[in-house]
């Protein structure tokens, strides 16, 4: 149990200490929002209905989470290269604990960067339903007038926009 705690702590410390990582995790979604948000919003709003930002926001949060998850995977390789992995492998701790500790610590980063994005977006009046349930279930509706319009598989949003269809 302590082993899980100390590995979690290590990941959190490393995240808090690495300024580059924090800046990157904030810069990347900002970039997406600015570039795509301002770039495509007029096109989108002409073609369909609703705010493009509302459509984009959950995706950006999702992207951030996905990207930092990938970094967590790469971090294991870095640990291997710099030898630290060996130190944990010869310790009298089962592999599963090592994995749990590491994963918990890393999921803290993901939660951090994800929720920072979310709170940043909220201040721009993006509705909570769009942010709190960034589920990846997108369905395309063939009977729509506009084939590019897709709705988030979110009952709240669907009800609002499509009358519960």
């Amino acid at each position, binding site marked *: 149990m*302590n*082993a899980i*705690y*100390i*590995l979690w702590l*290590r990941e959190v*410390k*490393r995240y808090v*200490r*690495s300024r580059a990582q924090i800046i990157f995790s904030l810069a990347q979604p900002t970039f997406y929002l600015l570039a795509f948000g301002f770039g495509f919003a007029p096109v989108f709003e002409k073609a369909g209905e609703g705010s493009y930002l509302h459509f984009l926001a959950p995706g950006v949060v999702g992207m951030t989470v996905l990207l930092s998850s990938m970094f967590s995977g790469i971090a294991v*390789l*870095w640990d*291997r*290269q*710099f*030898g*630290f*992995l*060996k*130190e*944990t*492998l*010869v*310790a*009298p*701790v*089962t592999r599963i604990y090592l994995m749990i500790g590491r994963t918990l610590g890393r999921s803290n980063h993901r939660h951090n960067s994800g929720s920072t994005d979310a709170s940043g977006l909220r201040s721009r009046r993006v509705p909570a339903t769009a942010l709190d349930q960034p589920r990846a279930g997108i369905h395309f509706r063939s009977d729509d007038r506009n084939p590019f319009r897709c709705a988030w598989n979110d009952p709240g949003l669907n009800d609002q926009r499509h009358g519960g269809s």
Partner: protein
Amino acid sequence: MIRVRNITKTFKSFTAVKGISFDVEQGEIFAFLGPNGAGKTTTMKMLTTMLSPSSGTIELDGINTVRHQMAARKKFGIVFQDPSLDDQQTAYENLELHGILYGMPRKLRVERIEQLLTIFELWDRRKDFVKQFSGGMKRRLEIARGLLHMPKIFFLDEPTLGLDPQSRSQLWTHVKYLNDTENTTIFLTTHYIDEAERVAHRIAIIDHGELIAQGTASDLKAQTDTESLEGAFLALTGTSLRDESASSTEQVRGLAQMLGSSR
């Protein structure tokens, strides 16, 4: 303290270690020598539970390393050939992490960390990040870390590689001191044969996966009728050069250097 009986390790068609047996007594400093690719590292990995032998048994302080892996791991400390510190944490945090991984109670951990950092002259630098340390300081910290949980057996895998003569001599002074005061059994590999001769009580020489000689330095010299241990080593293992293919870790490291990346 270390009891090795007839261990072999086979990788697909290649046999790296061909049935070696030896014993190391408590409180002994045992040096394990051999040219590159002789099976040293494989043996070391088997002794430290990182690989399991294809056949044969290894007992550390009476504990079978395959059947009781976790108990065996608590018995030994290790200093790896390559650095294995977390350089984004401070010296103190590195030791603390180790102590917690090995399940040391808090009070003991704090006392022991202070004691070891003082012995290794790192107490003043305990709050500095490891990335700011010199090669010698990192090695000292690694040794301190390996000894933190008071292991009965201490493995040193080429601990002096890449160190200056000052750090090397100081390192061996520390190792000898700990061997004297805590009666720790020390198992080391090195390429510096003069060091092995100076420090080790007993020496074993491995080549092509077989143990070709073991005994005290003077035994080995008498056996081969040579003046120096280095002469004995060359007489036993020949003078031809050995090529070793790079390990996957080395390949990754080479790639990283090529890409000019840093952490």
